[in-house]
Structures are given as C-alpha cells and as structure tokens.
C-alpha cells in the first residue's frame, strides 16, 4: 500500500501489508501492483461497508438511548432465533432494502435516475484512497492528496443534483437546489479551514501531515494540530462544515422530511435508496477520517507509552469517536432554516476561517519564540482566535433575537 520501509516496523504494525503481500507473492512482479491495488480496494470496501452496517445500528441505538428508550433490540439471528441486542438489525434492514420494489417514475430520466446513486457512491469511495489508516496503510501515496480528497468530495454535489433533476419531482428538484446551495456554501469554510494545516505542514501529502504531528511536547503532550490555537479553531470550523457537507443533522435540509418528503431521495426506493444511504455514511466516514488526519494526529498515539498499540487501532478509535460526535449532535440539535444555514456559512464561518489563516501565519512566523515569548505567542494567537469569534458571534444573532408576533 505504501512505500514505507515495511520491514523495519513491528509485526502487528505491518500485519495487513504482510497479509496482502502473502496473497499476491505468487504473481509475477509486473502483475503484482495491480493485484495489490485491487486487494486494497476490496479491503477498504469490505471494512467500510461493515462499518456502515454497524453505524446504522449504532446511530439508532444512540438516538434511542438519548431519548431514554432501548433502540432496536429485537431482530433475531436468522434461523437461530437468538436475539443479540439488535446486532442482526443491519442484516434485516439489508434484506428489506434488497427485496423492496425498485420504482422508477414514468416521467423520470431513466439513465440519470440510475446513474445518480452509482455516481454518488463512486465519488464517496474515491475519497477513501488518500486517507492514511496506519503507519504502513496508505492506499495511494499522492503529493497532492488533500487537494485530491476535496476535489473528489466536491463531485458528490453533481450526483445529488443528478438525483433531484432526474426524478422529475418538484420536491426532489427543490431539495437538489437546496443541497447545491448548502454544499457550495460550506465548501468554502471547509477548504479555508484546512489551508492553515497545509500552510504549517508545508505539504499537501496526508502521510507527511500525520508524520509532522508525531512529536511530543515535554515528552508527554502530543503536538497534534488541534492543540494549537489555530488548529483548534480550524478543527471546529472543519467539523461544522463537515456536518453540512455530509448532509447531517442539524444541516440535513436537503432531506427535510417535514417540508420536502425525503428531498432528492423522494423517488428512490429499494437498493438505490440503500446506495444513497451508504454514500451518506461513506461521506461521513471519509470526512471524519480526513479530520482525524489533519487535526487529530492521524494514526499517532496520544501518549508515547501507548505507542505499542498498532497505529491503525488508534486511527479507528479516533474515527469512531468523531463519528460518535456526529451522532451525538444529531441527537441534540434541531434543523436550521435555509437562511440561517447560509448566514452561518457566509457571515460567520468564512470570516473566521480567513482570520484563522492569519493566526496560522503568525504561529509559523513565531515558531522560534522561547521562554516568556512562548507565552506571548499563545496569548496573541489565542486572542486572534477568540476575539473574532466573540465579535462575530455577537453580530450573528444581532437583531434576530426573540421574535415578536403581532396579530391582526
């Protein structure tokens, strides 16, 4: 998977790569790269499809528990009839989805209607290629990996508009327009929030960005980007924008059930609907993985003493923690209105992200400051982060406070 000197790593660390090499060692040298790539693709797909199945269950369980109910806990294992706290629920859902009738509206554009879920899933899977899952686990080593990631991620907008347009349904089209407005609005803060990372790391390569976060302050504190003023602000902006980019609550306007039936999914049923659902979770996983890579130290262990645990284990733990926060937020916040949504992006997140660029630039320029100057460095950077947040936060809701209603 990568060009790392794999033999220098401990056995557990290079186990996935060693397994892959063992599978393809019988092939001639000229064919091996192709087989290796295909195996990587299959492995990624299997792992994330399983994760998708478990995430749907976990999401329903967590939402249930937050609302003080058990969530799905009855689906028994097939042929055995044993209930396993709902673990067989994804299986039941899958069977249900596959056996449902696949309806294409008479007025729909049949080709586009079919292509939309396929394209969405394809673009979502593309983004998995450049995420470093472990020290030796990077599917594709690219110099411009970050650029590639966001370019592939932005292409999902096309697929969503395809779905809305091809359905020939007013709700679908309205939802697709909304989705475009939302995704393009939040593309900007998403990209602006990662520019400081590129600025500080001096590289667009994900593996290099992770490597650079692998040092420890005083031998204890990890030097992840999130533990710097600009990194903290950048991570929060990135996270909010990622919520919006993956159409998750509280930014799930394209699928606003109460207004638009199911948005661009209105005319989809059965397996195609399942594909859309899968792509949504894949997008969520990919953005979380990129967030972990850029801000949370990627596959690095949080303290040196725990570095014996394989790096992909740490990546998985961080990824799952971030996905949990996605679900926690879904369980907590109500949906925004479209004007609130765009206002939040253009009047709050974009200016903050721009200011954050200067904070990061200051942080890079002042990297040589030591002793008491180090405190001054934190103070200035902290003010640069917190000041605009407070000022803009006050402006954001100014004049829009509690509404008063006059009745005729």
């Amino acid at each position, binding site marked *: 998977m990568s060009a790392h000197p794999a033999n220098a790593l401990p056995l557990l660390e290079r186990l996935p790569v060693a397994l892959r090499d063992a599978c393809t060692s019988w092939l001639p040298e000229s064919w091996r790269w192709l087989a290796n790539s295909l195996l990587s693709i299959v492995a990624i797909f299997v792992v994330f499809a399983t994760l998708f199945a478990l995430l749907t269950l976990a999401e329903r369980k*967590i939402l249930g*528990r*937050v*609302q*003080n*109910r*058990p969530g799905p806990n009855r689906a028994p294992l097939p042929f055995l009839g044993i209930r396993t706290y709902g673990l067989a629920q994804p299986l039941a859902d899958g069977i249900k989805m596959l056996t449902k009738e696949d309806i294409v509206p008479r007025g729909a554009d049949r080709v586009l209607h079919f292509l939309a879920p396929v394209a969405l899933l394809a673009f979502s899977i593309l983004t998995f290629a450049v995420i470093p899952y472990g020290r030796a686990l990077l599917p594709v080593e690219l110099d411009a990996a970050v650029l590639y990631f966001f370019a592939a991620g932005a292409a999902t907008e096309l697929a969503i508009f395809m779905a809305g347009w091809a359905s020939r349904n007013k709700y679908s089209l309205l939802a697709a327009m909304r989705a475009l407005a939302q995704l393009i609005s939040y593309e900007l803060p998403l990209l602006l929030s990662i520019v400081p990372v590129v600025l500080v790391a001096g590289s667009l390569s994900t593996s290099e960005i992770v490597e650079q976060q692998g040092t420890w302050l005083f031998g204890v504190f990890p030097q992840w980007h999130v533990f710097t003023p600009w990194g903290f602000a950048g991570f929060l902006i990135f996270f909010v924008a990622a919520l919006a980019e993956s159409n998750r609550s509280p930014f799930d306007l394209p699928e606003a059930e109460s207004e638009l039936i199911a948005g661009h999914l209105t005319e989809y049923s059965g397996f195609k609907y399942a594909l859309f659902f899968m792509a949504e979770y894949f997008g969520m996983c990919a953005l979380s993985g990129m967030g972990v890579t850029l801000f949370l130290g990627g596959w690095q262990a949080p303290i040196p003493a725990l570095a014996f645990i394989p790096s992909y284990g740490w990546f998985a733990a961080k990824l799952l923690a971030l996905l949990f926060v996605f679900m*926690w*937020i879904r*369980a*907590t*916040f109500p949906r925004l209105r479209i004007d609130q949504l765009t206002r939040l992006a253009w009047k709050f997140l974009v200016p903050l992200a721009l200011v954050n660029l200067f904070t990061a630039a200051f942080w890079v320029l002042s990297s040589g400051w030591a002793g008491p100057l180090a405190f001054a460095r934190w103070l200035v950077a902290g003010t640069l982060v917190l000041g605009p*947040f*407070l000022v803009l*936060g*006050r402006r*954001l*809701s100014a004049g829009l406070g509690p509404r008063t209603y006059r009745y005729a």
Partner: protein
Amino acid sequence: MLGSGLLQGLAVTAKNLAGSFHDPARYVTTEYPEQRTKLPENYRNFPFLVHDDPADPNGTLRCVACQICEKECPPQCIYIVMERDEKGKALRRPKVFDLDISVCISCQICVEVCPFDAIKMDQEYEIATRNRFGGLLLHREDLSKSNAYYHQIHPTEAAGVDAALAEQKAKQAAAKAAKAAPAPKAAATTATPATAATAQDSAISPAPAAPPPASAPDTPANPAPANPPPDA
C-alpha cells in the same frame, strides 16, 4: 457567548445517554409483549355482559334483553333478540346479543342506562383480528364474562354493584315477607302459587300474576325493576 447554549444542549443529551444505562427513572421503556404495565382501574374500552355462575354462562346472564342499551346506543352497535319459548312467551334473556366493536365508541352509555348492572366495560385490548367483518362482531358467547372477572378488572366499581344488588335483594325479601303476612287470610288458595311465581322472577320484575290486594301502597316501589321488558 455564542455556542454556550449548544454545549448545554449537548450536556443534556449526554446525561440522558449515560443515565439510560443505570438510572431506572430515566429508562422507562416497557418491553411490551413480555412486560406489561398494570392498567388503571378506570381504563375501559368495549362493553361485556356479566353472568353470575361461570358453570352456566348463558343461563345466568344478568341481561334480560330489555333493549334499553340497544335503543340508547349512539352509534347503534348493539343488536338484541329476546329468547322466547315455543308458545311465544318472553323468557327475559337474550337469544341474540351482538355488539360490533368496530362501530362502538366506548361511550359507556349502555352501562349507564342498564337497570340490571348486566353490561359493563371491559379492559381487554388485544382484540386485533384478521377478519374485520366477522372478527369484530362479538356475539353473546364472546361477550359473556363472569362476575369474578368483573371484580378482577374494576374491583371498586364491582364491589359497589354487588352491594347495591344485595341491598335490592334484601329489600325485595322484606317486601315479600310483608306481603306474605296478610296474604294467607285474604286469598289462601291463590296466594301460594302466586308467591312461588313472584319468588322466581322477583329479581327481574314485579310479579306479573296475582297482584297483592292490600299491600301495594305500602311496599316501596323498586326503581330498577319498574322498567318492564317491552313486548318485542
């Protein structure tokens, strides 16, 4: 500060998420088919007919087929036919008592108007059926349930009904005793079969045969049996 409300909201949901695992006051779900909550005593859905002897459910129905409930029922979901012997004499019990629970509105008016405490409200709620026409039309046999069952579902109400019935019976016995005292002197020959007849159906209605000559004004008229069954 902007965002403090969001953090408070997150804290609330986190408390619920953690609390549902260890705090029974938060986690209140009842897993229905296995666990059931006890219904409140005053819960009601559809009417049933009370009988006194479980060994003979149809013979000891309190219902006398007077059809008051049939006439009062707002959605007209009750249908009653009185049983008659071969000579056409009314036997004061229902031959047919049909109740369509797909029409019933659970208003309890039939219970309110019944002079014989014969119809009461049930608590049985698992009445889903695959046949929406036949399955929801309950017949006399389906509706007939014992007084013990009535005590089980509405204990307080049933105790009150039993007390009222016992009091009524005692009053009738007293009236009969008062009647029996002057009777032997006036009409010694006819009184004996007449009293035997009244003893039989005094619980249902005033004696139809052999009205007592002198004691009628001073016997207190019982309000419940004052409604004679109409001749259908």
